[in-house]
């Protein structure tokens, strides 16, 4: 299943319905929500394509008035999705580290998803990445990532 994380916003592209259904088990979710041509976490499906200064984006007030795709709105407000708490948080509050191992032409992550905002050693925060979740091994093969 293709996994796309853009500025802390997730989009999943399963090959079949069963794949996305089984992926729910890793996050104790009943189901993911479909938005257009991708699936995402139920909370992220509620992020609108604009924000107004002071108006809440999910659980936090927007710090900027802007418009764009949901991930662009999150990026302009400096927020990322926090997988464990199923909410959004300022990227500056994410302090975790991501364990990525270089394997040939991809990076191997031992967790199904990398928490956006995580760091690798002394680099900046990983806010966007794309890869493939290999169900049989419960591994995420990251083909590219960007950090700031």
């Amino acid at each position, binding site marked *: 299943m293709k996994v796309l994380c853009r500025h802390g916003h997730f989009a999943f592209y399963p090959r079949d319905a069963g794949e996305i259904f089984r992926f729910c088990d890793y996050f104790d979710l009943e189901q993911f929500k479909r938005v257009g041509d991708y699936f995402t976490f139920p909370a992220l499906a509620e992020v609108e394509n*604009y924000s*107004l200064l002071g108006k809440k984006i999910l659980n936090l007030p927007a710090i900027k*008035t802007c418009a764009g*795709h949901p991930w662009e709105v999150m990026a302009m407000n400096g927020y990322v999705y926090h997988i464990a708490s199923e909410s959004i948080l300022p990227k500056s509050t994410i302090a975790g580290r991501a364990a990525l191992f270089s394997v040939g032409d991809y990076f191997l992550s031992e967790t199904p998803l990398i928490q956006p905002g995580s760091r690798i050693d002394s680099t900046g925060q990983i806010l966007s990445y794309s890869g493939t979740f290999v169900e049989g091994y419960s591994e995420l093969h990251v083909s590219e990532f960007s950090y700031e």
Partner: protein
Amino acid sequence: MSKVLAASCVNGKVTVEGFELSNVEILSEGDGASTGVVIIDTDRAYYLAKTSPDLDTTLAKVMEALEGIKVAVGPDLQFALTLIGSSVGPSEGAAAASASAQITAGMASVTAAINALTTLKGALK
């Protein structure tokens, strides 16, 4: 990617969905309270007021003025000319009758203008 939202503006302060926005460029002229739309383009916002209410009010005022002219001036002036016509000589009477006819034609023009404005007011989008 742009977003258009209903908005209002009072004393230069633009409000959308109950939130007062800062850094909004107001594109309309005039300082009166208004309703309109905010256009958000990435991280820039613009406010545009609806102009139909202003035009609607202006047309109503003009129609009111024309009705006033028709009611207050026309009949009184025609009556005055009729009195004059009945108390002066033939040539002066003919002149008064001619003037009265012109007033009648003028009032008809005023009526036509009021009707045209009524149609325009109803067609405002």
